[in-house]
């Protein structure tokens, strides 16, 4: 709660009633005759054409799935196909009123939405614009295929071929698909038309769409964002978090309060295609209690998110409602929620036997077919004749046969050849770019010049090296600490890249729970730096969407333990979109997580292993101010997702290693490059994170008591990681112990030990050993020395397993027998 707002005990307890307004349900009641004022004949027919195209596309997919044949074309498709037959009017109605600046995000059932938005964009763009987009996309690969095989001079017709072919080739995992076949059916998209990724995780798109809306809101970009989901997704936490996040008061009450920057609510439409089933579970009457999804919106904000329900079987009703929502979002009155009631006649997937519903129900809805009904109304209203509609149908079918023939032709539409180009997927796992500013055209919006930031001024008076001229330690209060290193890198980026944004829990005013951000509040407007609700899924998920839309985000989860609360967003979204898009999307997101100390079992965990396990993330864990600033600089200058581990034990530690202290100027520390913090000859200690300082203490004991010289290597980053320096060290010393604060089992340390054993076997005088934390819960601070690796323990393990130290009396039981016993017990 910012100081500008007062929590008044005199008002908090005032009696009264929370009031709700009526939520409109299917109130549209216009006739074709009425609508003739709004639509020309070609508009009416185009709506039919688009619905019919989607129907044919999905019918084709269904035939291929269940019969391996469509109109004489044989093909087997082992991949998924979640069809939306019956929902065409909902998709086409929505897309009809969106332009390419309006972004759509979808679900696993979004073929229809992609095609609808694509066809709508083709209609709205000029021929030149269209051709330029197609020519630029993936170096013109897809355009080349369709130009060669569909002989037409009409760019709009060519664009339709392009759209259908690109989408189908993607579904069939062809290299000529929109995402080189790496996204597939559930992840197909086409950014140039404003069609953003669909998502195989139910509800996965909600926080991502929120992030794209945040990008528009914070950077003053035109258009709205539509988060499409099914009614089943409303049971998902990330969706509810996103609804709340989008509706939070500060966006309208605090952002832009100085009048200097744009005002208004979050420009996002949560569009719920309510087909009454979340797979087989019936949301109305069985798995949920809200009845109409529209009702759900009423609780999030006094605006009730302008919620209403519309008949999704009537394209004109959908257009009318969506247009109203879009208008109010553009006016800054967002967010909004629209329930589009529709029905999925097809099963959840072709393997769905529809055991959860009756044949009568399906038949009744099939009879109510939105396409048929719409056509009949138009014929009745004399807009067009049946013959005209038949001609449209024939043309669509003819096109569809050509498209599938082309998409399954292995010569025209090959799959990625990983035998010939084995690095093709490797090369898109990371973008590895260096981009100073994601938008060079704008100046960053700030409140004061950087030099005037009180923090910048305070840091200027600090010693940038941990020791004074006489070699004595500088007092903590006067030394430039690790948190200062992080701050310097971050504030520099805020003044360099206008899209840079930071948020998380307790970031503003408080300055972050660990004071890294102290001084940013004075420097940055709300829309670039704010407190997020305690919604880890929405925090990380929105950063993903923010980056997809073109911005750079720094989000913070406070404690690393909260990674679990944002599991899907970190493991499935943040990590995968660069590669699932075949490198089209970039993901410049730094996710800061802090490893706790003194805070017990749920606030003290080093979870580097969880993040390092997931391909696509970069992971680092600096332990010195120099490395923290250098790695943060590189992370912020890059375009890859970075999980940035910090440790609460060492935020105040000064720079003890880099001669001359932490440079004031910009510099980068390369990801993947471990650093020799102390040279030695008898044993290598590879440390991950804050344990570095205990490793140094251990080295001192080894040296002074046993005459053993230890070399200490600080891993600094975990993914990527260059083993060469470590192997060089092992060649010299012959022995290595890997230490870290993570629990031993399945840790990154174990992974490194195994790799080192393979890579340096012939040089080893003993197997690489690991000393992490016990496989327990973290006990209270007073007992931590029995849990986290300590200096004496490091010496014990070295004596026990690497190099028996004469006269060593162990403090810890680190014998092999003990380890076998512990493992038997699972501890």
């Amino acid at each position: 709660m910012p100081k500008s707002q007062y929590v008044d005990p005199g008002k908090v307890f005032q009696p009264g009633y929370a009031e709700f307004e009526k939520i409109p349900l299917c109130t549209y009641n216009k006739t074709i005759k009425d609508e003739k004022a709004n639509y020309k004949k070609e508009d009416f027919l185009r709506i039919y054409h688009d619905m019919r195209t989607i129907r044919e596309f999905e019918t084709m997919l269904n035939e291929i799935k269940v019969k391996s044949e469509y109109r004489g074309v044989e093909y087997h498709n082992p991949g998924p196909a979640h069809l939306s037959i019956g929902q065409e009017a909902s998709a086409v109605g929505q897309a009809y009123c969106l332009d390419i600046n309006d972004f759509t995000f979808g679900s696993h059932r979004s073929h229809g939405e992609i095609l609808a938005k694509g066809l709508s964009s083709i209609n709205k763009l000029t021929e030149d614009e269209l051709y330029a987009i197609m020519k630029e996309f993936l170096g013109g690969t897809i355009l080349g295929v369709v130009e060669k095989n569909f002989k037409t001079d009409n760019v709009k017709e060519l664009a339709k071929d392009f759209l259908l072919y690109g989408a189908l080739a993607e579904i069939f995992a062809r290299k000529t698909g929109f995402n080189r076949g790496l996204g597939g059916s559930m992840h197909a998209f086409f950014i140039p038309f404003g069609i953003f990724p669909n998502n195989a995780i139910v509800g996965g798109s909600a926080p991502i769409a929120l992030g794209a809306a945040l990008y528009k809101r914070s950077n003053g970009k035109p258009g709205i964002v539509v988060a499409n989901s099914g009614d089943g997704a409303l049971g998902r936490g990330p969706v509810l978090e996103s609804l709340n996040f989008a509706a939070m008061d500060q966006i309208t009450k605090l952002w832009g309060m100085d009048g200097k920057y744009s005002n208004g609510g979050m420009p996002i439409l949560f569009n719920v295609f309510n087909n009454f089933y979340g797979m087989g579970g019936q949301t109305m009457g069985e798995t949920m209690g809200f009845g109409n999804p529209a009702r759900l919106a009423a609780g999030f904000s006094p605006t009730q998110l302008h919620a209403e329900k519309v008949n999704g079987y009537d394209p004109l009703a959908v257009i009318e409602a969506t247009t109203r929502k879009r208008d109010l979002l553009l006016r800054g009155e967002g967010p909004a929620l629209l329930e589009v009631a529709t029905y999925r006649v097809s099963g959840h997937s072709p393997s769905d036997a529809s055991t959860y519903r009756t044949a009568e129900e399906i038949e009744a809805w099939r009879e109510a077919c939105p396409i048929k009904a719409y056509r009949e109304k138009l014929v009745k209203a004399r807009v067009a004749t049946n013959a005209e509609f038949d001609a449209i149908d024939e043309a669509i079918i003819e096109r569809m046969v050509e498209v599938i023939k082309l998409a399954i032709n292995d010569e025209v539409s090959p799959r990625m050849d990983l035998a010939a180009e084995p690095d093709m997927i490797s090369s898109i796992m990371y973008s590895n770019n260096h981009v100073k500013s994601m938008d060079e055209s704008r100046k960053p919006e700030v409140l004061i010049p950087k030099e005037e930031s009180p923090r910048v001024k305070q840091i200027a008076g600090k010693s940038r090296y941990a020791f004074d001229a006489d070699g004595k330690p500088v007092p903590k209060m006067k030394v430039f600490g690790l948190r200062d290193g992080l701050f310097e890198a971050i504030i520099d980026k805020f003044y360099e890249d206008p899209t840079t944004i930071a948020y998380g829990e307790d970031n503003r005013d408080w300055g972050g729970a660990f004071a890294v951000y102290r001084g940013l509040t004075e420097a940055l407007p709300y829309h670039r730096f704010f407190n997020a609700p305690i919604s880890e899924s929405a925090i990380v998920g929105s950063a993903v969407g923010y980056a997809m839309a073109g911005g750079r985000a720094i989000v913070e989860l406070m404690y690393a333990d909260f990674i679990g609360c944002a599991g899907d967003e970190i493991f499935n979204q943040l990590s995968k979109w660069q590669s699932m898009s075949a490198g089209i999307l970039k993901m410049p997101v730094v996710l800061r997580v802090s490893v706790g100390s003194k805070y017990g079992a749920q606030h003290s965990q080093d979870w580097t292993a969880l993040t390092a396990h997931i391909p696509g993330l970069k992971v680092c864990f600096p332990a010195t101010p120099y490395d923290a600033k250098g790695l943060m600089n590189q992370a912020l200058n890059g375009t890859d997702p970075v999980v940035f581990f910090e440790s609460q034990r060492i935020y105040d530690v000064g720079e003890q290693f880099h001669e001359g202290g932490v440079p004031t100027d910009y510099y980068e520390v390369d990801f993947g490059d471990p650093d020799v913090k102390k040279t030695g000859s008898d044993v290598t200690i590879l440390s991950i994170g804050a344990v570095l300082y205990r490793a140094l203490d251990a080295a001192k004991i080894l040296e002074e008591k046993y005459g053993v010289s230890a070399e200490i290597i600080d891993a600094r980053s975990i993914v990527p990681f260059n083993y060469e320096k470590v192997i060089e060290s092992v060649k010299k010393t012959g022995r290595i112990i890997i230490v870290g604060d993570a629990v031993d089992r399945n840790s990154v340390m174990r992974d490194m030990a195994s790799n080192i054993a393979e890579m340096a076997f012939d040089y080893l005088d003993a197997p690489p050993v690991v000393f992490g934390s016990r496989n327990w819960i973290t006990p209270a601070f007073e007992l931590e020395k029995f849990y986290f690796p300590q200096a004496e323990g490091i010496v014990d393990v070295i004596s026990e397993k690497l190099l028996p130290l004469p006269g060593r009396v162990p403090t810890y039981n680190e014998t092999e027998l003990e380890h076998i016993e512990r493992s038997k017990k699972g501890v």
Partner: protein
Amino acid sequence: MANLVIMPRQGQSVESCIITTWQKKKGDRVNEGDIIFSYETDKSAFDEPAQFSGVILHTFAEEGDVVDCLAPVCIIGEEGEDISSLLGGAAPAEEKKEEVKKEEAAPAGKAEPAPAPEATKVEGDRLRISPRAKNLALKTGVDLSAVTPTGPHGRIIERDVNAALDAGKTGTTAAVEDFLRGIVPEKKEEAEAPAAAPAAAAPSADVYAYEEVPMSNVRRVIAKSMHASLSEMAQLTLNASFDATRLLAYRKLLKEKGEEMGLSKVTINDMVLFAVGRILPNFPDINANLVDGKIRRFAHANVGCAVDTDRGLLVPVITCAEKKTLAEVSADAKRLAGGAREGKLSPDEMSGGSFTVTNLGSLGVESFTPVINPPQTAILGVCCTTNRLKADGTVYPAMGLSLTFDHRAVDGAPAAKFLKELCAALESFDLLLAK
């Protein structure tokens, strides 16, 4: 004065005996001639009479223990006598062929100092050495038998190799390779120096120290095969001798004049092998294997040749000996014996024998009971030459032959006939060559 009673050596091939019964106990008084203990080899049982009178002051082994031949068994003396010199100075039996890890000290408890290094290197058949120490050893040619391991699990680690190098313990790279392959050289005097420290200085606890020497793989194979042989077959041995005058004369000739033809190195054993190769085809049930109730008669005489090696008895096979010249047989025998000693023979070269010749004659054995190498049906033991008188009073060199055969496959008469024919052939060796 107290005396050590040692385990007698019952025959050249016996390396150790099992004490079956203590007839007297520690503290008992014995008179010269009293039986102190009973023991047995793999072939026979014996009683050991006291050679001195006195009191049994100490016993080194218990019933059921295997004691190396010539190793101490007990001490007989007078009560109250100082026997410490005998306790400590108990010399190990013969040379040690393998260095063996003592029983590992109990794992260090929480407050115990790290265990002191032990002068041991091998646990079971496995040498523990880190890859790094191994590479250093190969590079420097350190004498691995002189390296004291100090690593975890008794592993030789880099610093141990360095320590040995600093102490000047170097050898050849080939010796390192041999050592790593498990071929352990006989311990040098020098290397044994610490063990040979004065007995009096040794701590008293060491009196009861012992070493458990696990059987090497070769030893295990021999044990299994010999036990099976004796327990499953109906073996009996026939002894005979022949006049070796002409054989020895011919050998002398070869030695003196055979240099050019490369025959100067032909041994008596080679000549016996040659003769056996020529005679065997005449006795199909002796040139045979008995397998699963069927006699497998061999088309060729594939003569096994028992070779004593560091690791134990090995029996490489000279194939088709019936067709080979003396020079060829001799060359084969030499090559195979050398290969066996260096451990370089393939399993193929040590299998498929139809008959075996074993020779203890060079070690002065006059007569013995060779044990058949299963599933063969007979084995010929070659004994030493003794001088005998002829009826006319002339002395002639008589060479003994001991033929053990499996009565299940062969009867006494044909076996005796084989022996007789072999004797005749060897007696007229020069004529045999012409055949």
